[in-house]
Structure formats: structure tokens, C-alpha cells
């Protein structure tokens, strides 16, 4: 979308050019903040900005209205340059009620814009938010650019002619706020008008008309009322690689990667899953791909879900199961069965804050050790992790490729931050995706017995022999196998040989993965190493530190078991390695044990992602210690 298409609507004010803006929408979980933020995001994506988002919502679907636990927020950052995180402190806070104000005000930048819905600042609302005095009147908002708007009154005025009832009209107020911000940041309204039409147009034409009208009214109000002296614009991002882009969320990208791998291997997907926050989106998304031959099975529990996937793998499909931490715990024994029977399997774990039920909607990276070791016996699996919404596509494709080629379960980690976050994604061409070659076992020559545990000399993978193939009848199971024949064996030497063989098979995947790469030079004072969703914050921090002249590089790994073969030498090329993790230092523990490198662990376990600031400060403190 070009600027000229939005300009004519906003005629009366200066347009100041900004490089980036961070907006946080906050309100009741019923106020539609996720949708509002999502719409701003989609529009900004279509307008060519780089962006990153952070939805932050309560676990309760509808906590009591107006209370502090019921506050739902959506933060997005859009820019004309390359960004990696949804930003540390918002420039704009939209607070739909006092509770939202109370929870989020402290993060708003000084001098930031604070858009308040005055309709919800009645004594009862203030009480619910535990305000002793009205913040609109007690001077506590000094230092911020407060814009007071009675969103409810204005929404009702806009809908004076609408046949909708009061409640339904009330529900449109988020569109009024969105309209105001569209004007403030020179957004094109067309994408949202189209979206509203597609979403409600056919079934609820009156709702569609009302939402469109309110959006438009909000925009016009901002234009005419003079509540802002200045409006802003953010030009399209210019650094981006040429090509066609779309806005994508992590779980969405992950599912597309799986379907792409299914096409490139010629094998259908069979997903076994059980609803769990924040992984259910994977089940929903794959369930909508039936036309791509995807079978989804909502099982009776987590164990049945993984077992069904293993059953599907045994008969020649891509068996996948998706879950979050507590579900992974339940699947442990079955993953062990897939290790023992050496079948391909992809286990997606969208991590959330634990232990136990923990904080279901909040993000954490504390399942790494569970993924590595959370099973009985010596039970190695490949462990991969997405690092941002846009690379979830590549890594889920990779998970399938490795599982099929190496005949092994692969645990693919994501987390709430990646799964629900959104950013622009350079859409790959199907023609450029690699083929995944799968060869099933065929009947052995006359007179020879089929050996279900014969091994590929390079990968040590066993043959994939599908039920239905004449001449290959064989039995597999969880009891220890004799190498080659696959018969049950209690022989002590064979057991040790098999334990080592299974470990070696997974270790050899290292020959089949790319080396770790750095942000910046491959040696220096400090390496900020990370895995998973800390990548954005690390990249942001390291880029700033490098601009300030520090010899600091970053590295974010997707391959956790086996590790990239060059990781050790890379770490040794720096005086210090700092490892930020949203856990108590799990990767740090693994790397210290394996390489005897004195890694500095930097932990945050608050259910919230790292900000670039936090990492930057920590690195600076560490650099100061050295000097």
C-alpha cells in the first residue's frame, strides 16, 4: 500500500516520520484486545513494515470484568528497519479500563501517549482495579500525553442508526480505538474493512456494518477533534529481502512447514493431539488442512495422542503429536517406545511456564532438560527448537526430514512467545524446497531373512518396513532387541551395544545439520549464546552493543541435540559466553557439563520474554567486570 492512498483521508495535521512505534493495547479479556492488536498488525504487514508482536493474555477465558487478573494485552512494534522483538517499552498505551491502566502504565515510556477510555473510570470500575483515587484526577498521570476519550459514548453516537442492541454496540468500541490509532499512525483502513466484511459480512451483516462504521468514526474523530497535534507515519521497511511476504504466527508457520514436508516426502501427516494451551493452535491449524490429506485425531488424552502417532508411523505415515510441557511429561513412556522401535516421530512441545499447570498462557523455556532426558532408561532423541515465528516453518520441515531419514523421534520445541507472536515471513517457493526421499524396505532376496534392525552404515537408521508389504512380516516392541534380527534379547552385551547404537544414531545427525552461525564476528570478548525464542532479544542487544563498538557477537541455535558440530570451537573463540534463558540455566548446564566451559548463565523465569535492554545491560556489566 502506498502512502498516497492513506494521505487524503488525513488532511489537516502534520505527519511526522518515525522509524518505529511500539503500541500496547490493554483491556478486559472480553474487550477484543487480541483482535484489535491483530488487525493493526495485519494492516502494518500489508503496508510493508517490519513487525513483531507479543500477545499477553490471562489463562481464564473471561476473568471477572474490570479486575486486574482479567487484563489482556497485545503489544506490537512496527518499523521501517529490521527488528527482532516486540519492543521493550511502548510508545503508546491504549487502556480500556483502570485495571488495564494499573497493570501496564509502569512500562509506558515517559512522554508516551496514553489513550484512556473514560467511560470506564466510574467509582465502581476504580474499585475493581483497586484504585483509591481516580488517576484521571489525582495528577498521577503527569509526564504522559494523556488522551481522554469516552469510547462508549462515541461508539453509541456513531451507531445511533444501527439496529443492534446496546450490548452489541458496546462491543464495537475496540474498533473506535483502532480507528483513532489508524489515523494517528496513517494506517490504511482497507485491509481491516475487508477483514470485517469477510468475518461477519455474510452471517451478521449488521455487525459487519457497525464495526466498519465505528472504525471509520474513530478515524474521523481523531482527524477532526484535534486531540492530537501531530500524526505520524512509518515508512515501509527497506532492508527486507525482495520477494512476497505475509504476516505469520509461529504455530501457523510450524504447521505450514509440516504440510510442506508432507508434500516433499509424498507421505501424509497423521497428527494425534489433545487440547492444551498454548499448543492447541497446531491441532486447529492442521485440522483445517484436510484437503492436503492431513489426518488429525483429537485423542482421549496425551498418551493416546502420541501412541496414535506412533501407530501411524509404524504403518508409513508421518506421525506427529503436539502438546505443551505437562503433556510432554505424559508422553514420555511412549516416546521411549518410539526410541526402542526406532520409528520416525515428531513431538511438538509449545512450552509454557511450569512446573505442573504453572502459568498456561505465559512463556518459558524450562522443558529443555525434559526433552533431552525426561524418559526412563538411556533414551536419546533429536531435539530442535524454533527461534522465531518465521523460522518455525524451516525447523518443522527439518524435524520431519530428520525423523524420516534417521528413523528417530524428534522433539521440536517452541514456546508461547513464538507460537502466538507474529512477524513478516518471506514466503518460500515450493519449487525451492528440498525433496525428502523415503525408501521403504522391500522383500529380501529368496532364502534370506528380513532383518528389521539391519542398519544403514552411514546413519545407523533401520529399515522402515510397512505392514502390508509381502515377505516382511516382523514383530517390534518395547523389549530390548537383538541388533539385526530385532528378536527379543536379554543378552548383556547386546543391550550395551544397542544403548550405544541408539545414542550413536542420534549423535550422527550432527553430520546432517548446518553449523551454528554468529551475529557479528566469530571471535571477540563476549558471545551471547541462546536457543529458542531469546533470539530476537539477543539480536537486538548484540546489534546495539556492536554499534557502540563492543566486541560482542550473538548466536542462537536451533539444534539442541545433537549440537552443531562447530559450537564448541565457536564458544572457545570468545573470552566469555553469556547464555540468557527463560529457565534456571538448562542449556548452560548441558554445555558446561559437556565442554567444561565456564558459561555465564543469565536466567529469567517470569513467564515473560527477555527484553533487549535486559540483555544489553547484563553484557555491559559483564564487560565492565573484565576491564
Amino acid at each position, binding site marked *: 500500500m502506498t502512502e498516497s492512498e492513506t494521505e487524503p483521508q488525513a488532511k489537516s495535521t502534520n505527519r511526522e516520520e518515525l522509524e518505529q512505534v511500539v503500541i500496547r493495547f490493554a483491556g478486559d479479556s472480553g474487550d477484543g484486545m487480541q483482535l484489535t492488536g491483530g488487525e493493526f498488525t495485519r494492516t502494518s504487514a500489508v503496508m510493508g513494515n517490519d513487525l513483531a508482536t507479543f500477545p499477553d493474555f490471562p489463562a481464564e477465558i473471561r476473568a471477572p470484568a474490570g479486575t486486574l487478573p482479567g487484563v489482556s494485552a497485545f503489544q506490537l512494534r512496527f518499523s521501517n528497519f529490521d527488528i527482532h522483538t516486540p519492543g521493550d517499552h511502548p510508545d503508546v498505551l491504549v487502556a480500556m479500563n483502570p485495571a488495564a491502566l494499573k497493570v501496564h502504565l509502569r512500562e509506558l515510556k515517559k512522554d508516551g501517549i496514553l489513550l484512556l477510555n473514560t467511560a470506564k473510570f466510574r467509582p465502581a470500575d476504580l474499585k475493581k482495579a483497586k484504585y483509591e483515587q481516580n488517576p484521571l484526577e489525582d495528577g498521577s498521570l503527569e509526564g504522559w500525553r494523556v488522551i481522554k476519550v469516552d469510547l462508549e459514548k462515541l461508539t453509541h453516537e456513531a451507531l445511533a442508526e444501527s439496529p443492534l442492541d446496546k450490548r452489541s454496540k458496546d462491543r464495537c468500541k475496540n474498533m473506535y480505538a483502532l480507528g483513532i490509532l489508524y489515523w494517528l499512525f496513517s494506517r490504511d483502513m482497507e485491509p481491516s474493512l475487508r477483514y470485517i466484511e469477510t468475518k461477519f459480512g455474510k452471517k451478521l451483516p449488521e455487525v459487519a456494518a457497525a464495526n466498519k462504521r465505528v472504525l471509520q468514526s474513530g478515524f474521523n474523530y481523531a482527524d477532526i477533534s484535534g486531540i492530537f497535534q501531530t500524526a505520524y507515519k512509518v515508512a515501509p521497511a527497506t532492508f527486507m529481502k525482495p520477494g512476497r511476504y505475509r504476516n505469520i504466527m509461529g504455530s501457523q508457520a510450524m504447521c505450514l512447514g509440516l504440510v510442506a514436508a508432507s508434500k516433499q516426502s509424498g507421505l501424509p501427516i497423521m497428527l494425534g493431539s489433545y487440547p492444551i494451551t498454548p499448543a492447541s493452535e497446531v491441532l486447529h491449524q492442521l485440522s483445517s488442512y484436510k*484437503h492436503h490429506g492431513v489426518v488429525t485425531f483429537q485423542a482421549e488424552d496425551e498418551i493416546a495422542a502420541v501412541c496414535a502417532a506412533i501407530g501411524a508411523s509404524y504403518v508409513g505415515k508421518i506421525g506427529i503429536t503436539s502438546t505443551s510441557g505437562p503433556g510432554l511429561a505424559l508422553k514420555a513412556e511412549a516416546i521411549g517406545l518410539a526410541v526402542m522401535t526406532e520409528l520416525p516421530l515428531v513431538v511438538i512441545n509449545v512450552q509454557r511456564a511450569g512446573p505442573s499447570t504453572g502459568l498456561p498462557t505465559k512463556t518459558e523455556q524450562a522443558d529443555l532438560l525434559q526433552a533431552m532426558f525426561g524418559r526412563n532408561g538411556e533414551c536419546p532423541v533429536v531435539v530442535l527448537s524454533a527461534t522465531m515465528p518465521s523460522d518455525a516453518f524451516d525447523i518443522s520441515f527439518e524435524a520431519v526430514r530428520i525423523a524420516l531419514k534417521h528413523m528417530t523421534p524428534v522433539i521440536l520445541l517452541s514456546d508461547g512467545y513464538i507460537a502466538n507472536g507474529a512477524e513478516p515471513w518471506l514466503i518460500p517457493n*515450493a519449487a525451492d524446497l528440498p525433496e525428502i526421499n523415503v525408501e521403504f524396505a522391500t522383500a529380501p532376496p529368496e532364502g534370506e531373512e528380513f532383518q528389521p534392525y539391519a542398519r544403514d552404515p552411514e546413519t545407523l537408521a533401520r529399515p522402515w518396513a510397512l505392514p502390508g508389504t509381502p515377505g516382511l512380516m516382523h*514383530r517390534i516392541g518395547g523389549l530390548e532387541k537383538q541388533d539385526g534380527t530385532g528378536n527379543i534379547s536379554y543378552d548383556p552385551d547386546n543391550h550395551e551395544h544397542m544403548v550405544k547404537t541408539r545414542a550413536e544414531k542420534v549423535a550422527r545427525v550432527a553430520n546432517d545439520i548446518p553449523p551454528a552461525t554468529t551475529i557479528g564476528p566469530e571471535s571477540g570478548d563476549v558471545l551471547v549464546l541462546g536457543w529458542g525464542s531469546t533470539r530476537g532479544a539477543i539480536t537486538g542487544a548484540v546489534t546495539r552493543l556492536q554499534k557502540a563498538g563492543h566486541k560482542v557477537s550473538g548466536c542462537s541455535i536451533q539444534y539442541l541435540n545433537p549440537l552443531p558440530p562447530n559450537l564448541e570451537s565457536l564458544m572457545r573463540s570468545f573470552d566469555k559466553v553469556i547464555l540468557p534463558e527463560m529457565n534456571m540455566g538448562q542449556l548452560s548446564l548441558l554445555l558446561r557439563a559437556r565442554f567444561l566451559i565456564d558459561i555465564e548463565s543469565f536466567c529469567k523465569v517470569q513467564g515473560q520474554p527477555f527484553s533487549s535492554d535486559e540483555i544489553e545491560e547484563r553484557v555491559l556489566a559483564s564487560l565492565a567486570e573484565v576491564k
Partner: protein
Amino acid sequence: MSSSGVSLNKKDYKSDQDVRWCPGCGDYGILNSVQAAFADMGKDPAKTLIISGIGCSSRFPYYMNTYGFHTIHGRAPALATGAKLANPDLDVWVVTGDGDGLSIGGNHLIHALRRNVGVKVLLFNNRIYGLTKGQYSPTSEQGKMTKSTPLGSVDFPFKPIALALGARASFVARSIDIMGKHLEEMLKRADEHEGTAFIEIYQNCNIFNDGAYASFTEKAVRPNRILEVEHGKPLIFGAERNQALRFTENLEPQIVKVGEGGVDAGDLLPWDVHNPNSALAMALANLDEAQFPVPIGVLRSISRQAYETGVTSQIAIAQERKTETLDELLTGGETWEVK
């Protein structure tokens, strides 16, 4: 003749592995009946997949020259569901026991039954944990003295076929390890059924629970103690074939003498396995075996779409309605071009 066109006999279904159940175990008889029935039905070993959990019964796949998967405790129905969904052409059988299928795996069993997945479930019920050396099971009678219940078990037991009926199973039958011909017949009937077929097989564990069923399986008492339920026939039993089981209006069971007290064989309700109402089958399943004859045979066989058929047809319809290349899928929604 098998579907592969080769005539097979019982020994073609025997694997090269030594059978390692205790001598005298009821499992031998069941294995023999399954092999005989498979030969009669001409099953193609290459298209047959036997899936089991953990326990004595679950060693079954190792002794069959078919595809086999000896999985983990209780999970066989879940594995089998995945396998059948992924390849509905396979002939999938589940072998489980009273501990495996009703205790640790109870959840998977009931859900497979309600979904009506096209797998045949053979539940060997010996009313004891054998492989772990003799603890009471969920089908052990109350008061059972075992290693884990030295003063007798307090638990009230399941009746597996009542549980299956409660889970809305479309096919429910019972047979006994030592009644080979009857068991073979049940296996064939199960094989013909679309959807989940559940067969409870009373099986004697001669080591830890010997004689669990002797009170009605001993040759001498059998005719008076076992009621062979047959479709379209009244519930008549007894060496003289002159006793009948009937139910009052309140579904209370009664034993009556045929030809006495105004009871005529023609007046007795013929058993209908297709009855959509499962109340009578439930009443039969819940009979107190101390007071009433023990019913065996097919209790229920109703027609309902198999789960995999429904799933497969949804996929086929979706594919017919919408064709989308991978590029179209990846592009989806709103996009923009960076030059």
C-alpha cells in the same frame, strides 16, 4: 484361500519364536484358535497387524507370523487407532488383558469402542495380574486374596462386557479359552463386523488363579452353567435344553423351566443381537455368575459407521472440494511484495 491367493493353514500363522507362556496356560488354547480361525478366513499375514500392550496376553504378537507391535502398558487400542486411521486397508487386531485393557488402559479401550474404530479387540480375562506374579486385577472378585491383598481385595470388579456396552460398543461377545470351536466362531463373527469388535475371552491362569472359571467350565457342569447366546433364538440352556433365562418387566433375570408353569419355548423372546436398545444385553452382561448361567456368544452386533471410514471420507470430500497447490497454501491470506 488368502486374499493373496495362496492357500494357508494354521502353521503358516506360527512365527519362528518359541512360545513362552507357562505350560498349561489358557493362552495356548487361544493362540491355537486364532491361528485356526485365521487360516479358515484365509487372512493374508502380510496385511494383518496384531497390536498388544503389556502382560502375559500381550506376548501374543511374537507368536504370530503377521506384522506385530508389542507396545506399552494399556496403550494398544491407541496405537491401533493410529495405525488403522493411517492405513484402513490393514486388518488390525488388539490383544490385551484385564489389567492392561481395563486398568491402566481403560481409557483407551472405552474411547476406541465409542469411536467404533475398525479393530478387533481380544481381551483375555484371567482375573489376575500374571506377569507381575499374582496381584488382584480390576476383574478379580471382591475379597480376592492375593499378594497385594492379603486380607482380601476391597475393590468391586468390572464386568468387561458391561463396560463395553456402557461405552456404546457396536459388537460385544464372550468366549472361553477351552471352548476352541466356539472361540473360532466368535473370531469370525468379529472379523465380519464393521467397527470395533470386542471379545472377552475367559482365560485360565493355572499359576496364579487356577480354576477361576471351573465352576462353570468343567465338562460335567458346563451344559447347566453356560448359556450359549445365539441370534434369533431364545435363551435356552441345560443338558436337557429345558431351562430358559428370561427377564421381568424390570429386567430382573429369572430362570424358568420350559414346558412348565405355562412357559412355552415359543413364548420366549428370541435374542436379537441387532437390538438398538442395549438394556437387555446389559442385563445379560451383569448376571451374577453364582446364581445364573454364564452367557457366552455374541450379545450385541449393531451397524454403525467405522471411525476410519468417517475420517477417510471427510478427507476425500475436502480434497474434492478444494485443490490447492503448496505455493497457494504458503501464500494464503494477505501478502505484499518487497522489491
